[in-house]
């Protein structure tokens, strides 16, 4: 219990319990159905992947506003390159494009000593612009062959009635936890976010650490885009729009402090669950879909206040 309270994910855990209680009371029959739960968990898995990457960047005390566009761009690349490269080939090239996008932005942030908020805002527009030019605004589909390709099914199918994305988020979050808490890179990433000068004075190449975080973030966003399209192989120019806001919300609700150096992998997943559940349930209850953004905003603010109070209570300086 003590460990739980001390973990950054505590707020999100409380939030999920409260949210489920409320949904149970106001919409028992609508919420607790296989259909709802499978949709919500599938969307949660996708958003969680994007939010996990975002969390890594936030832990280094930067931010990445471009994840929604990178998610879209990688997805578009995956679908439109498939006819010439095949499914595995276009998967690799699409992820490579994502990695390059992260590398370019990360390098601009550390070498140019620019605020990541601005650089990645540029990335957001630039990548979205490329999507428009590339697709010409039209919708692209996978061929029937590509839809039934083993790799497409591995990434977008299901096993025992559970969507592949959920297994993927399970595996990736486990790997990220191990990386973050159990390796040199993780220790240096957390140190970079905690105090860049101090980490640097101990010989940590904080510029490389930050660049690596941006690359991982873009890769995860791109991979999430690919998972989505393997499940529903149809691109649209708005693919991933506003996703950066949801991802940042999920990371912050999940306990990542914008002051850097602190966060929780489990918390981020629960944060994504909260964001997605609100979206789904509000629409299910018949609220106009535009209300959902307002609600996410309100939840975000409550979460930030809660997490800050919690951090102060634990004696952290935030």
């Amino acid at each position: 219990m003590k460990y739980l309270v001390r973990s950054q994910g505590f707020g999100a855990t409380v939030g999920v319990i409260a949210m489920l209680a409320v949904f149970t009371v106001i919409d028992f029959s609508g919420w607790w159905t296989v259909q709802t739960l499978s949709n919500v968990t599938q969307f949660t898995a996708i958003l969680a992947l994007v939010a996990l990457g975002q969390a890594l960047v936030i832990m280094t005390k930067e931010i990445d506003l471009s994840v929604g566009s990178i998610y879209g761009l990688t997805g578009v690349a995956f679908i439109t390159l498939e006819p010439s490269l095949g499914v595995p080939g276009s998967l690799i090239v699409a992820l490579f494009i994502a990695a390059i996008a992260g590398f370019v932005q990360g390098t601009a942030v550390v070498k140019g000593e620019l605020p990541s908020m601005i650089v990645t805002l540029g990335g957001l527009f630039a990548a979205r612009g490329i999507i428009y030019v590339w697709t010409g605004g039209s919708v692209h589909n996978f061929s029937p062959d590509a839809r039934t390709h083993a790799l497409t099914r591995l990434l977008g199918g299901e096993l025992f009635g559970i969507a592949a994305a959920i297994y993927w988020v399970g595996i990736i979050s486990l790997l990220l936890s191990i990386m973050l808490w159990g390796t040199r890179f993780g220790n240096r990433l957390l140190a970079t976010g905690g105090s860049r000068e101090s980490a640097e004075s101990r010989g940590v190449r904080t510029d490389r650490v930050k660049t690596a975080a941006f690359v991982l973030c873009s890769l995860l966003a791109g991979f999430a885009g690919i998972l989505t399209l393997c499940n529903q192989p149809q691109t649209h120019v708005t693919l991933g729009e506003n996703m950066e806001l949801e991802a940042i919300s999920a990371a912050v609700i999940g306990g990542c402090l914008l002051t850097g150096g602190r966060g929780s992998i489990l918390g981020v997943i629960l944060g994504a669950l909260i964001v997605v559940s609100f979206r789904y349930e509000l629409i299910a209850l018949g609220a106009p879909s535009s209300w959902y953004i307002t609600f996410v905003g309100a939840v975000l603010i409550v979460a930030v206040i809660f997490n800050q109070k919690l951090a102060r209570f634990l004696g952290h300086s935030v």
Partner: protein
Amino acid sequence: MTQQPLIQVKNLDLYFGAFHALKNVSVDFNAGELIGLVGDNGAGKTTLIRVLCGIHAPTKGEVFFDGRKVEKFHPKLAIDQGIETIQQSVGLCDNLSIARNFYLGREPVKRILGIPFLDFAKMREKSSRVIRQFGLRENVSADDEVERLSGGERQSVKIGRAVEFKNRVVIMDEPTNHLSVREREHVNELAVQLKEQGLLVIYITHDIFQVHKLADRVVIMENGEKVADASTDSMSAEALEDVIRQGGRVVEKQEAV
């Protein structure tokens, strides 16, 4: 004195924007020497040693290490050359545990299936053993975050780390700050021991009488300039204090005569 200096600083200038923080500083540091670096607040002591440990690159001038000109300045390069520094105001990440801070940048690993994982057992055991000698209380564990430590305990982590990783040069920027009498003595003994082991020790302090007792040579700075550089045999502690109080003018006059 035919041996070449381990670190040689030649005509160093450093600007922070328009502010001239180091003005044409030249000084030699020899292996096996304990050198006191003294001077008023804001004299440029910390700035000078931050060039030596790679945090700042000089605007003009040269630094030689072991006879070779230093081309690139980064803390990692300085550490790899064997320069270990107890920094005055940076060096600890509040969000990390004592053990993680202790080994930051040189984390020991244990391979499982060929993958290098942090060796937590070693990190905990070794770090707490070393730091306890410098005043870390028994009830503080190596897993506690540095944020919860007292000023003296934080200092003990930095000192312990320098002892553990000492190599060729140990730079101590006001190392006895926040320390109680016993730990202070321990640190001063340590500085002498390191020197006797053949290391170069650069010791920054405001405690003139203490440094006069410990050091072989004292370098005095004032307003970004080196104003005196004398062996402690040739200068009494009182004279040293006078020079600092008067901003180096005494020395200039003496030289002019």
